């Protein structure tokens, strides 16, 4: 009797909600990485051509890791951008428009100034980042000056962006055939293409901003308690504006990687980034009301989503399962992160 009363608190402490919430995403990722090779092994076994579990797995291989890396890189950049916004307790839904405009403007300038990175055309890369920043800045201004909720302001700005990209291209797609720029995809270092390293570099930059700069700490302060931050003398509006601008820069990086990946810039370049980025941020464990999470959570979230997308096809499940499973994961992730005892109503 005494034993069990002694045991219970320690077990419950070990499996406390906070701990579970904190480690659940990485646990899910680990399970998925073991689960897909198992199914693969099982199906091969049933067909009578068994292989050594994990060692001979097609899913659990460097080549496939590189494929997942390529699929994940642009989405990771966009998701990292929106992570900052979600940390502040706001939301940014403008990524599809911003990505399209950055991709299209980059392609136009790149082709006009020499069409290869070895010429002045390389200036198109920083230009794209500036365009992203500018779009994020305007997005923030609309949100702050006009006092429009961020979800509506950014959604509207996203539509404006998509429309702008369409006007710029007239519906055409622009090919980028420069071998040097395409080496983002074709050149490999230690089995992984360059774009994966580029994405990782920017992830480190984001981590630096998040943990080592005042701005990064301020994101948490605003997300954790806006009134408190304001009362402490923090210029909350300025932090928000900086946040949206920063997010715009990361959207632009995502756009560049997306163009590097398929060699085409078009209005549709931004398609699907909205759903994927919000899903990955939430699945990674960043709370939608701000203050909890960070860019490493987002990395885990992006990997979870891309491992599922890749693994489902590798084990041969029909595509509609993928969306269903992702939907369930989002609900689970949010349900885990909500403290229902302290929340009386939800809007």
């Amino acid at each position, binding site marked *: 009797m005494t034993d069990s009363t002694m045991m219970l608190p320690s077990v419950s402490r070990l499996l406390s909600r906070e701990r579970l919430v904190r480690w659940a995403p990485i646990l899910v990722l680990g399970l998925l990485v073991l689960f897909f090779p198992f199914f693969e092994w099982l199906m091969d076994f049933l067909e009578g051509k068994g292989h050594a579990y994990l060692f001979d797995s097609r899913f659990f291989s460097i080549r496939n890791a590189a494929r997942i890396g390529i699929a994940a890189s642009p989405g990771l950049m966009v998701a990292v951008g929106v992570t900052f916004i979600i940390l502040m307790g706001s939301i940014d839904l403008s990524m599809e428009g911003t990505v399209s405009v950055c991709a299209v403007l980059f392609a136009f300038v790149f082709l006009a100034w020499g069409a290869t990175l070895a010429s002045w055309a390389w200036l198109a890369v920083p230009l794209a980042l500036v365009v992203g920043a500018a779009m994020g800045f305007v997005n923030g201004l609309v949100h702050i000056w006009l006092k429009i909720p961020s979800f509506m302001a950014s959604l509207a700005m996203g539509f404006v962006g998509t429309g702008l990209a369409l006007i710029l291209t007239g519906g055409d797609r622009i090919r980028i055939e420069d071998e040097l720029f395409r080496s983002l995809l074709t050149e490999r270092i230690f089995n992984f293409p360059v774009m994966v390293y580029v994405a990782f570099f920017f992830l480190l930059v984001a981590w630096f901003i998040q943990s080592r700069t005042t701005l990064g700490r301020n994101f948490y302060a605003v997300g954790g308690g806006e009134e408190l931050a304001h009362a402490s003398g923090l210029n909350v509006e300025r932090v928000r504006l900086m946040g949206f601008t920063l997010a715009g820069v990361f959207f632009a990086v995502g756009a560049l990687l997306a163009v590097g990946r398929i060699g085409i810039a078009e209005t549709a370049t931004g398609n699907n980034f909205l759903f994927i980025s919000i899903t990955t941020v939430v699945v990674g464990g960043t709370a939608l009301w701000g203050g909890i999470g960070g860019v490493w959570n987002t990395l885990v979230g992006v990997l979870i989503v891309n491992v599922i997308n890749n693994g489902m096809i590798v084990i041969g499940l029909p*595509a509609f399962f993928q969306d269903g499973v992702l939907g369930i994961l989002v609900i689970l992730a949010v349900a885990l992160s909500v403290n229902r005892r302290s929340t009386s109503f939800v809007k």
Partner: protein
Amino acid sequence: MSFIKKFIEQETINRRDLLFASAYGLGAVAATGLMGPGMARAAFSDPTVAWSYRNRTNPYWNEIVSGGEAFVESLGKPKSFLTHLINEGSSEKSLADVKALLSKTSGELALAIDANDAPNARPVVEACAQVGAYVSTLWNKTDDLHPWDFGDNYVSHMTWSDEGPAEQTARILLEAMGGKGGVVHLGGIASNNPAIERLNGLKNALKDYPNVELLDAQPADWDTQKARDVMASFLTRYGSEITGVHCANDTIAYGVLEALRAEGIEGMPVTAYDGNPQAVKHVGNGELLVTVFTNPHWGGGITAALAYYAAIGAFKPSEEPREHREFYGPTIQVLPEDAAKFKAEYIDSVPTYDWTDFWGPSNGQIEYK
């Protein structure tokens, strides 16, 4: 008390007016009933011309609408004369926009439309017929809806049967594979009719090639980036078992080519569909085996032209045979050897079409299974 007298007089006159008005109204209704719908109005001299479609982001719809613009230019009007109704993939918006334009133009409208999904075609056609506007549809309509059931107002319907042409591309692919090995198919949005037909085309062809296995077929939603990801996953699953790739359209094929390029795989036979300029270039380079051109430019122009010329009374739809009311659009196969010629004829210079030759390039009456 003169004002009372005046009031009574006025009321009497009003009542008489009302009676006259009612009688007149009834008569008008009766007359319309006698003459039947579509006969009640004379042909229009200058109807509004409108195209209702999803959006312009998609290169295919961009081509369709550029055809519509080329047609209005042939009338000596500016491109902006064409009214664009953009439904963004919503049937409700499609119908609401059409109704709004009908009331704005009081029915003096020549409408070309893809109703977004098949069930939406009926309310659109009925709304047009009711006010005497002229409508031609493209792609989507249910099998029980026919132009000849609406007199002159439902001018025509055009669609493409993709099963046959997709079967031909599949045969070219299977021959290139040497009649053995494994093929994967990357399809459009799972429930889209052309996506289903194009996969069926492949399956039909496979019946004659027992040594080729259909390894997998997954939807890639007509999207280059998604196609790239799906192809990368296929490579993980099947690796060197894949010896040929059948794509449901060009944009999917671009994604497949990039996935292969990332892996350094060269010389894999890949087929496409739609005949977009970039795909034709790939066919010329030998990166793609074949694509099929459906001439969306002509399709978009002629659909608007049919509605317009019926609206101004240049021809009477109800006097045309059925193969002129419901017909298949053109399909042209583009192989490496004719890529250069095709590019010169259709891409470098957009051909000037005779927009009064309504049925020249068409492909026979629609058959229902």
